[in-house]
């Protein structure tokens, strides 16, 4: 498994392709790949948003991600997992997070990918501060909505 934090924009599909190319020993063993990409929208809670800053807790964020991905691998018997998450300044339409998992069968892939996203949303120490278009002020996002 690989967990990465990035402080500059990344291309989820290119990352995914590159990572999968490296999974030579799994060729022919995985029948299912599920992935999720979270992208910054230009609106939130009814207001236009023009920018975001993602704060994190260096050290703990990586540890928590590693734990929650390992839990999903174990629970669903996944073969592999990749998580990339942005930190720092983000603009609308830029990717925030990529989660991808590989497994023999589809149910495990769907369940595992979703569990990683839900656990990431509820446990991984990231905090979003978004800048509103109208007032040019920024506000902390209060909490994640349940999935």
């Amino acid at each position, binding site marked *: 498994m690989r967990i990465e934090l990035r402080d500059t924009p990344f291309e989820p599909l290119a990352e995914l392709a590159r990572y999968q190319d490296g999974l030579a020993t799994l060729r022919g063993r995985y029948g299912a790949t599920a992935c999720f990409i979270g992208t910054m929208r230009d609106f939130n809670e009814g207001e236009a948003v023009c920018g975001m800053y993602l704060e994190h807790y260096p050290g703990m964020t990586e540890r928590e991600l590693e734990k929650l991905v390992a839990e999903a691998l174990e629970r669903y018997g996944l073969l592999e997992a990749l998580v990339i998450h942005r930190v720092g300044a983000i603009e609308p339409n830029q990717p925030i997070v990529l989660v991808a998992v590989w497994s023999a069968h589809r149910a495990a892939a769907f369940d595992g990918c979703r569990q990683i996203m839900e656990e*990431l949303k*509820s446990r991984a120490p990231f905090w979003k501060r978004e800048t509103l278009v109208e007032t040019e002020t920024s506000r902390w996002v209060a909490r*994640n909505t349940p999935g």
Partner: protein
Amino acid sequence: MTIKIKYFASLREQLGRAEDEYPAGPGLTVADLWTRLWPDRPLPPNTLAAVNQEYADLGRLLADGDEVAFFPPVTGG
């Protein structure tokens, strides 16, 4: 012989500081630590705590060298 404290996000801004230090002592819990540091400020509701980069209860006993963090609900992903 100290405990290192970190604050994040909106809590960091409300407190006006990102880090603190406090002397370690016997029987000191995470909740005690907050009260000693901020006697006039109750811990904001929903604040989360971590000790040595793992989530911890407020009743968790602290030891010399521990890193304690206080932060609001997380909003990543």
